[in-house]
């Protein structure tokens, strides 16, 4: 399954036929494996990777450090689930280090993001503190450089 997943992760538009050609596996087997992975929640979604800056979007992203006082017997999960529910939250991770939850928030403007943090995130039970970092520039996302690429010259023929 790993080889099929890796191919789809790199290019979600690959058809089972194309994947079958690349892996040497029969197309039917590829189809069944993909279906199984979807059912088991291994494949969560098929997405396009968009450079919104290039698309001319003014939308704002922020990374928010959240310190949590975990609830006895529940840990971080309860707070995480509360935060996750908000559509403004694009991603949420529990991480090691100075703070606990790493929240990625998207809004139409800095004001909107700040408002979300102040009114919806910070006041939650068990949230001790938040620090908001606004994303200024994306260099590399999901393994892809967002920078302009220079064409590399090669000889037209070589033995």
């Amino acid at each position, binding site marked *: 399954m790993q080889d099929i997943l890796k191919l789809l992760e790199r290019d979600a538009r690959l058809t089972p036929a194309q994947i079958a050609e690349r892996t*040497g596996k029969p197309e039917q087997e590829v189809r069944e494996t993909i279906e199984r992975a979807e059912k088991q929640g291994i494949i969560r979604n098929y997405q396009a990777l968009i450079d919104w800056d290039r698309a001319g979007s003014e939308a704002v992203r922020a990374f928010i450090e959240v310190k949590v006082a975990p609830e006895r017997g529940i840990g971080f999960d309860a707070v995480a689930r509360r935060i996750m529910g908000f559509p403004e939250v694009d991603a949420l991770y529990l991480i090691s280090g100075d703070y606990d939850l790493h929240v990625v928030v998207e809004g139409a403007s800095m004001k909107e993001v700040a408002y979300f943090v102040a009114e919806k995130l910070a006041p939650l039970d068990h949230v001790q503190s938040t620090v908001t970092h606004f994303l200024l520039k994306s260099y590399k996302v999901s393994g892809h450089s967002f920078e302009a690429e220079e064409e590399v010259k090669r000889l*037209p*023929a070589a033995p």
Partner: protein
Amino acid sequence: MDISQAIAEKLRNLPPSPIRRFFDLVEGMPDAISLSIGEPDFVTPWGAREAAIFSLERGHTHYTHSRGMLELRQEIARYLEKRFGLGYNPETEILVTCGVSQALDLALRALINPGDVVVVPEPCYVSYAPGVLLAGGELRTVATSAENGFALTPELLETAAPGAKALLFGYPNNPTGAVLDRAQLEGIAGVVRRRNLVVISDEIYAELTYDGDHVSFASIEGMKERTVLLGGFSKAFAMTGWRLGYAAAPAPVIDAMTRILSYTMLCCPTPSQYAALESLKNGQREVARMREEYNQRRRIVLKRLRSMGLELVEPKGAFYVFPSIARTGLSSTEFAERLLGEEKVAVVPGAAFGKSGEGHVRCCYAVSLEHIEEAMRRIGRFLEKIM
């Protein structure tokens, strides 16, 4: 003065490259899709590039030891041990060279006396024959055939071995993509032993095998003591422009080769050595990634070429396919030139790799899948037109 008369005899006797005219044509067509570049399309992984840049920033711009930095030789020894089960002493049995190209030149010059016979199976890399001739040796070619998968067989070797000094061969093979397994190598070793040959084994494509791991000829019983193993970084580590390779052989051979290198090259480029060191230490993941990509492309190319009705031997190594174009009735050069002119796809005429390459063309799949797909479409169209 007509200075062309002053050119050394041995060069005037060197046959002109059968591929030169074709390459000139390709150069004149920059928008052709080229399946004729025998190097990875990948750029050297960043880790290796960064290591070289850092070494320059730190001022490592001086000569190194003639044999190459000891640390690099030690890493090469470790790599050969881990990857292919070979034990070479990094101080005396390994020499860092400017590519396998130089290692081959040095090996031939270190081993061949004027008139010594070198057996070379064809089709083969374009530099083998000129290398033997430049070293003053006598070339004795044997023709491998599609019928037995372009393998060098003991029977074939036996026809040329009597009175020969050395065998020069390369597997995984350029241009055929053929690979030899342990049993096949053992068969060849039998003849080598019986005829007391020295062997120069070009294993530049050792990391690019798609059906099991490469078996080094030097790992066959009794062969290490009479083999010069050539390896490098160009193909597996995508370091063609850096000009870095190595030879591993018994100490007397390495010593002789080192003497020539120290007088003619002094040492190999220092930044390249740092890049190679980094590649060996931390580059295996990238090698595996590139190998996997080549394999995917290989599968697609094979499928497309077969669907066009072309006969071919499935290549299990390197990044070449060598289909037969005999059905078209054209010579390999005619085929390649017409394909280039009419469909703007460049493949290398098989004749470039020896007489036994005639009737075939070499398609290199170290190119993006998009280019491969488009090239295959055009080749298909071309075949429909001419047959």
